[in-house]
């Protein structure tokens, strides 16, 4: 049994957010962090490792600098890292990215008991698309918004966190799970021992050459050329006006509300 955790390096939006004239993020001038939801995915994977002793592989697609992030995850307790990095993969949108990551996982091998963990969504694009698309392309079941995960034989019992409550589901492995933050799940710290060992742990770089024989890899489905998404405009949404709180009991509040609406000629 092996757990793959897909992670993304994102700009640290708690600091200075730099935007290029064309509206895209100026990633070069911003410091980076591991995407917060991905930290939850890492923690869930490491919790299962603590319990079951399985291996945990951290996977990311990005520039060579993303190795630093993988080393941090190895220092938290993951066993090995995979960096998918190639010029041909640059400019990929969610469709092309999931295509490449699915190809990489196929290349690495996925067995009956394996699980793929992803964060719910990344704070830079907020699409929540890559995880589900990887599952579709690998033709395996997916469970999104997982808050707690329990392994029972060849299936997992998962509590999904939805807007209006929780949903319990069971899923057979292999499967893909996207994780959300539940209050009692805090990503663990790296350990000093982990840091001392992290550069000795295996880290594989998969480039276009390594993956080009995979059926999912086609020059028309990867990189900028294989990305159907086009951003035609990027803008800061205008701030909403300040709301008005109406005081008093229900009757008084309704009277105030109707009076205000009348003044605005709404009613």
């Amino acid at each position, binding site marked *: 049994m092996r757990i793959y955790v897909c992670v993304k390096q994102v700009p640290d939006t708690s600091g200075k957010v730099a935007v290029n004239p064309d509206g895209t993020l100026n990633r070069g001038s911003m410091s980076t962090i591991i995407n917060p939801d991905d930290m939850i995915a890492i923690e869930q994977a490491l919790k299962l490792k603590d319990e079951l002793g399985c291996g945990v592989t951290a996977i990311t697609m990005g520039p060579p600098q993303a190795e630093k992030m993988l080393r*941090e995850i190895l220092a938290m307790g993951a066993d090995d890292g995979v960096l998918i990095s190639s010029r041909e993969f640059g400019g990929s949108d969610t469709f092309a990215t999931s295509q490449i990551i699915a190809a990489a996982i196929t290349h690495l091998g996925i067995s009956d008991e394996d699980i793929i963990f992803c964060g719910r969504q990344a704070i830079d694009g907020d699409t929540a698309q890559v995880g589900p698309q990887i599952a579709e392309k690998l033709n395996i079941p997916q469970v999104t918004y997982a808050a707690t995960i329990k392994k029972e034989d060849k299936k997992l019992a998962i509590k999904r966190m939805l807007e209006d409550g929780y949903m319990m589901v069971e899923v057979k492995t292999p499967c893909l799970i996207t994780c959300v933050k539940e209050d009692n799940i805090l990503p663990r*710290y790296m350990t000093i021992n982990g*840091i*001392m060992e992290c*550069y000795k742990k295996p880290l594989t770089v998969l480039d276009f050459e390594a993956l080009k024989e995979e059926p999912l890899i086609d020059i028309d489905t990867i990189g900028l050329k294989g990305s159907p998404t086009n951003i035609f405009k990027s803008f800061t949404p205008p701030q909403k006006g300040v709301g008005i709180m109406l005081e008093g009991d229900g009757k008084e509040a309704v009277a105030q509300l109707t009076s205000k609406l009348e003044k605005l000629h709404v009613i």
Partner: protein
Amino acid sequence: MDFSLTREQEMIKRLAGQFAQEVLEPVAADVDIDHTFPVDNFKKMADIGFTGIGVPKEYGGSGGGALEEVLAVSEFAKKCMSSAAILSIHLIAPHAIYKFGNEEQKQKFLPRLTKGGSLGAFALTEPNAGSDAGAAKTTAILDPGTNEYVLNGTKCFISGGSRADILLIFALTQPEKGLKGMSAIIVEKGTPGFSIGKVESKMGLSGSETAELIFEDCRVPVSNLLGKEGQGFKIAMQALDGARIGTGAQGVGVAEGALELSVKYTKERVQFGKPIGALQGIQWYIADMATKTEAAKALVYFAAYLKDADKPHTTEAAMCKLNAAENARFVTNLALQIHGGYGYMKDYPLERMYRDAKITEIYEGTSEIHKVVIARAVMK
């Protein structure tokens, strides 16, 4: 000459900074006001491996050496001096046991002190033996019948003393020989005849409980003798060389923390229609604080490098501690001054940092004793 940290050291610095901000800082004010040792946070330090820095993995340690310790202690001191002192002082015992202990002692005590969450303490000072360690009166007389040392005497001002599980006690096994009759003996909490006396109320560093240790016919097996009989003073001095680098790191950290707060405040605080940072008087303060702190840090790093390279470092350890301590007081004083009335209030951390910084000029050897050590080396 390469001034850069290794990849691993960069990561330890970042980890320690994150831990200090997320775990230590939120309770720093409470620890100070309530005068309580942050027990839970010490356990968390152990879980991450901070308490095992400088001890190899085979004994439960985390590896690394003096520089890794300096990085962690400095990052802690930026946010909470009590926590930085707790870590720095704790590490003295495992380091001494690793250096001078026999295999049996290492196996017995190190895993507990490194990853086990047990707190270590170092007890040399006595009511009449501060800078003059040779005036120590505590005895440890061998009872040949039972093969035990019988300890009698009082140690005082022992950092973490009331909480420590494994303590390194310096006592006279041959009182007639004075310093040459001093030995280092490991005493465990709960040993009959060993009790905690007064827990001191201090000006600062309130989270590190400083206590009096009382020994009344306290019997300890002879196997707890660290090194050889009569080697105690040498062990204490070597341990203090390391501890002084740790204290230097505390001084650098608290200065860096006070400087960071000051820079932020000078940009936010508006007087006479502009941020006070636009005033040249304030800029000069900031320039002095930053320059002296950077210099202090370089000397602490250099002393740590010498220790890690197994080179003589007694003089440099004394220099880095003396300098970082004086700078810590200088910087926290100016930082408080920059914050004005707000700095004097307990709602802000400056007055705590100012009080905490003062100890670095006193413990692990006063500034004056350090000058004696340095002058002796330079003028020989």
